């Protein structure tokens, strides 16, 4: 069994209200030195060793991410 991680983030040109809200809260927490925050999704999959890259990509592309507004990266 292999652990695969897929991270999904909004495309850079798309509005990311999440990140803005977090940045605003940092000030109230008294934390300085953080200049930007983007929030995305993080998936941890346990897959059979022989699951091929193509299938993984299809999985990410159709189910985990919405390619219209999001990009994803896959790490084995």
């Amino acid at each position, binding site marked *: 069994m292999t652990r695969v991680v897929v991270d999904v983030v909004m495309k850079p040109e798309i509005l990311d209200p999440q990140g803005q809200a*977090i940045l*605003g809260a940092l000030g*109230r927490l008294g934390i300085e030195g953080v200049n930007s925050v983007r*929030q995305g999704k993080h998936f941890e999959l346990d897959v059979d060793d022989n699951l091929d890259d193509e299938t993984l990509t299809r999985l990410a592309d159709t189910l985990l991410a919405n390619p219209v507004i999001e990009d994803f990266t896959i790490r084995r």
Partner: protein
Amino acid sequence: MAIRVGVVTFPGSLDDRDALRAIRIAGAEPVPLWHGEKWLSDVAAVVLPGGFSYGDYLRAGAIARFSPAMESIIDGARQGMPVLGICNGFQVLCEAHLLPGALIRNDHRKFVCRDQRLRIENADTLWTSGYQQGQEIVIPLKNGEGGYVADENTLNELESEGRVVARYLQDNPNGSYRDIAGISNAEGNVVGLMPHPEHAVEDLTGPAGHGTDGLPFFTSILQKLVGI
């Protein structure tokens, strides 16, 4: 003189006006409070309303917890001030660690709005003394992140100490552990509730046939405060 009960408006609060109305109908003086103000205007009790706070993109209530108003409310609650958190307010209370556990995305992953049957499991808290122990009521439920979760120890402790205030009957609408709809702190002055009693205070607009089932949440607190 009427008892003053405050309702905090966070950026994104939705049911703040409803909570103010419920307090007025119950016979108290509703006092709007602003999240950015530490000063709580001499209120005797506080309601944290439903809706959203600061967008809730991170986790419901996660950012509201750090607001100036919450700093004072956390202090007040620790000294015994009655605080009721409804829906997002419940989430804020958990994030602020005034109540144990957390609220997560509904197990069916959809927002749900329905008239929900509940059983009042503890009629001894400051906010539920107007009910009979075991009384069944119907009030609106509407949430996307209403699943109450906590570890086994916490759940057992809550149950053994009688701190489960209300439980879902019939269908569990959001996957809450042990059908928990509301809990209290050990002292009973802080209560968090996922369904919305403030939407069941008038026959005209509350659930059909149960229009005012939620009103005792707001009258209980008055009886206690006047009684003191």
